[in-house]
């Protein structure tokens, strides 16, 4: 089959500034794959994109049930977008369970495309419905397009002689074709994907999927119920070459970049856990970068082996999610005592305990801040978007090596699986991260002193194999300088102070806090982590509506940027939206004695812009247009 794209539509095309679509179906229906294809295609067309994959923890939850519904939401626009969108323009539902669990997010007048072949009695029963939702009078509120997808797909691919099951599997590409027609998406990239994925050895599957895709497109062009299609022009992004990137992928690539910048090899140890495992999968593919991946027997072995690698002078990294971080706790304390560089990355998910493995939450902040025995502070950084993961792990590695301590990086399920366009950096312009391993003894009067410090209080990173610098490190309190075991009361106080001051010194190596919006005013929104997009969009919307509000999005949670307290003091009120019950708020209140207000949600879902906008409006007066906008 040829892979040229179909000619453009002959129906009228209506250009809009942005579209939000959600694709929902069974977890085995390939909704994630379709969503990624639509995202990639839209990015290639120059749109800005933001995504929200939402799927159950079970790999193949019982077919047709509400528990098994898997969804993928994407917003593509001709302007910058930072969220996957609050309200849907279109909902594509492959079965009744998917329809009823998602319909609430489709506003009146929204486009609703359903596979009507999957609304038979048995399907309704699986979704625990007594009558078909398609017969509900409420359907009149939507532009309902009932498509016999199963039948049309089977007819379309009949020529390939596939079995009934394989033929049925092609229906997701039929749905995709229809969506591509509806939004003027070019099919080339998806056709390349189909032939790349199914091509070798079983090209009949590839051909059938291509046929299904084209049939879906042709269906849109043909039926009268769709009088016109839509399209979205390219966004005006910063010039340069872009690609689409997902959070976990960016994180893995950031580790590669950090290693190259510092002349190290990545030693990456982890234990499989959702939603962090994709980092392991990604890095395991890059052995030619010298990456050593180690799938350990448990979370504790993962972090301990990374500590071993760090002692040997390599770049030790371990990743996990909340439950795994809990297990790594004791070893993180050890790394603090050994004063070795180490990266501990927590891709947060809903908790506590096993919690909501595939859903997002920001509730590990206090765990990574305080979840260790004794006085055991360490720097904590948080990525704000998928692309930001690339930057933040490099900053974390810079801190870890300059200060000789473990650093925690927080991501979350929303960032990890979300995607956005990423301006490909010029690798030749990445600055080196300078690391020194001493070769000579620093003590003219005796054995090498492993805990003699520089101006940042960092100790020398002497590594095994260096003659004359043999030394022992351990978890027992040690004498400053010599590193010998010491139970001396004054020394313990001194060492606790030093370890705390080292963390505080990180602020000297990091940029000051930036503010989006007026430099003073009525309300400051303080946010961190993956809520950045929703908070930024809500704040900008409120600014446009004349509210006196600014955003300070914090990437460095410990230590806080040195100017943060001063920034906070310039606003009358502080609002801290978090996907937890008030963890940053607790830190801010105790540190700055400010009566910050929280907006908290733990539903396994990201914030909507609307809910944050409404909260901002509730906390601000409506008559500030003149000074708020002019000082922006």
């Amino acid at each position, binding site marked *: 089959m040829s892979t040229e794209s179909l000619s453009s539509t002959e129906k009228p095309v209506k250009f809009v500034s942005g579209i939000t679509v959600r694709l929902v179906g069974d977890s085995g229906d390939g909704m994630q794959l379709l969503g990624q294809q639509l995202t990639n295609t839209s990015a290639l067309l*120059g749109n800005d994109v933001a995504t929200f994959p939402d799927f159950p923890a079970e790999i193949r939850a019982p077919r047709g049930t509400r528990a098994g519904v898997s969804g993928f939401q994407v917003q593509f626009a001709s302007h910058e977008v930072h969220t996957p969108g609050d309200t849907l323009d279109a909902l594509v539902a492959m079965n009744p369970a998917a329809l009823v669990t998602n319909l609430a997010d489709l506003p009146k007048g929204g486009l609703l495309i359903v596979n009507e072949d999957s609304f038979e009695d048995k399907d309704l029963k699986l979704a625990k419905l007594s009558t078909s939702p398609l017969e509900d009078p409420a359907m009149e509120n939507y532009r309902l397009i009932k498509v016999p997808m199963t039948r049309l797909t089977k007819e379309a691919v009949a020529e390939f002689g596939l079995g009934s099951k394989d033929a049925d599997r092609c229906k997701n590409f039929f749905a995709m074709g229809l969506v591509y027609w509806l939004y003027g998406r070019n099919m080339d990239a998806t056709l390349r994907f189909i032939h790349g994925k199914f091509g070798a050895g079983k090209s009949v599957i590839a051909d059938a999927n291509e046929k299904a895709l084209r049939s879906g497109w042709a269906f849109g062009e043909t039926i009268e119920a769709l009088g016109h299609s839509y399209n979205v022009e390219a966004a005006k992004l910063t010039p340069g070459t872009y*690609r689409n990137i997902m959070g976990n992928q960016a994180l893995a*690539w950031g580790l*590669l970049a950090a290693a190259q910048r510092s002349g190290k090899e990545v030693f990456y140890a982890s234990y499989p856990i959702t939603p962090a495992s994709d980092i392991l999968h990604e890095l395991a593919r890059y052995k*030619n970068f010298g990456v050593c991946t180690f799938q350990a027997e448990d979370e504790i072995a993962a972090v301990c*082996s990374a500590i*071993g690698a760090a002692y040997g002078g390599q770049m030790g990294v371990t990743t996990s999610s909340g439950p795994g971080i809990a297990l790594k706790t004791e*070893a993180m304390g050890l790394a603090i005592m050994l004063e070795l560089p180490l990266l501990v990355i927590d891709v947060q998910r809903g908790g506590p305990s096993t919690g909501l493995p595939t859903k997002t939450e920001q509730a590990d902040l206090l765990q990574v801040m305080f979840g260790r025995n004794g006085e055991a502070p360490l720097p904590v950084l948080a990525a704000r978007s998928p692309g930001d993961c690339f930057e933040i792990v490099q900053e974390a590695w810079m801190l870890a090596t300059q200060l000789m301590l473990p650093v925690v990086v927080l991501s979350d399920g929303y960032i990890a699986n979300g995607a956005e366009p990423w301006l490909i950096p010029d690798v030749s312009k990445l600055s080196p991260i300078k690391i020194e391993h001493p070769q000579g003894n620093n003590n003219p009067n005796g054995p090498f002193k492993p805990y003699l410090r520089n101006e940042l209080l960092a100790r020398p990173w002497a590594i095994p*194999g260096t003659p004359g610098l043999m030394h*022992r490190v351990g978890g027992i309190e040690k004498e400053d300088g010599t590193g010998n075991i010491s139970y001396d009361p004054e020394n313990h106080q001194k060492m606790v102070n030093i370890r705390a001051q080292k963390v505080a010194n990180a602020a000297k190596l990091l940029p000051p806090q930036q503010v989006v919006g007026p430099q003073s005013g009525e309300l400051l929104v303080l946010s961190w982590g993956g809520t950045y997009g929703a908070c930024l969009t809500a704040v900008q919307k409120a600014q446009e509506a004349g509210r006196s509000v600014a955003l300070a999005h914090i990437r460095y949670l410990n230590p806080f940027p040195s100017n943060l307290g001063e920034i906070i003091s310039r606003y009358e009120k502080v609002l801290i939206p978090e996907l937890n019950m008030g963890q940053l708020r607790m830190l801010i209140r105790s540190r700055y004695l400010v009566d910050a207000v929280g907006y908290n949600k733990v539903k396994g879902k990201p914030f909507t812009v609307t809910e944050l906008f409404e909260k901002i409006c509730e906390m601000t007066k409506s008559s500030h247009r003149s000074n708020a906008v002019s000082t922006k």
Partner: protein
Amino acid sequence: MSTALNVLKADDFASDQDVRWCPGCGDYSILAQMKKVLPEIGIPPEQTVFISGIGCSSRFPYYVNTYGVHSIHGRAPAVATGLKLSRPDLSVWVITGDGDALSIGGNHFIHLLRRNVDLNIVLFNNRIYGLTKGQYSPTSVEGQITKSTPMGVVDHPLNPISIAIGAEATFIARSVDSNIKHLATVLKRAAAHRGTSFVEVYQNCNVFNDGAFSYAQDKATRDDTTIELEHGKPLIYGKNRDKGIRLNGFSLEIVNLADGKVKEDDLLFHDEHADPALVYLLSRMRHPAFPEPIGVFRNVVHETFEEAVRGQIDQTVSQRGKGDLQKLFSSGDTWTVKA
């Protein structure tokens, strides 16, 4: 380098730290033998790393002038695995105890053995928790009275050698703290083996479990209560070397050689490369029913973990060339936004 090595002595491996074990502890003997053996192994101190967990034995790294990490309870095998994977050039020793390796660190211990990382584990088995002052350990015997078992231990003890065989360790040996010549020989052989070498050392805790291994330590009794395994030789023991071990069906039995009815050729001949099932039978020989074997139970060659891991890295580099970040970032679908 080699000339410098020739002059290395035990003292070159002594650190400047005061040893803080209880007077009379069996650990002193193991430390002394290790310091004696290290110069003979011929690896310089800067290429040697001792890694330990928590417990009396785990203070060991502080007392040898090499590189060392005194890590956390039970995790030394994991720390050591990370170090050896990233620095295959180093000679790595893990020092551990029965609580550290078999209780809190049991998981890591098994996985280290089955992976066959090229390092040496020395497990000081004293059948008691010493540093926490006298609770029973996974190797304490049934009925043993300890602080935490005033009515006697009810747990069935773990047999470290049996576990090592189950995990398919490639080098498994046992020695006794007071049998210094034997201990030195076993440590040297462990160091020479490529792959994970596991050595169990019977070690007396004279404070909390004194005499636990007296049958194997006392010169008066040890010839009758232990049997020295020697590759290719029949299993003979006893002060007068008049007793032997014979394989009868799928069991071992003690036979008397004195009356001449049983010939040496009828005995079990020790084979360090034998099927693990046979080695397992040896590990089940327990005092007082049997003499307990000391020496090398098993010694087989298998690819080491770090060779396999580094091998995949080298193979990928030779097939695809050294990784190029710019190429990687620009791979797949990209688009350009013009100024």
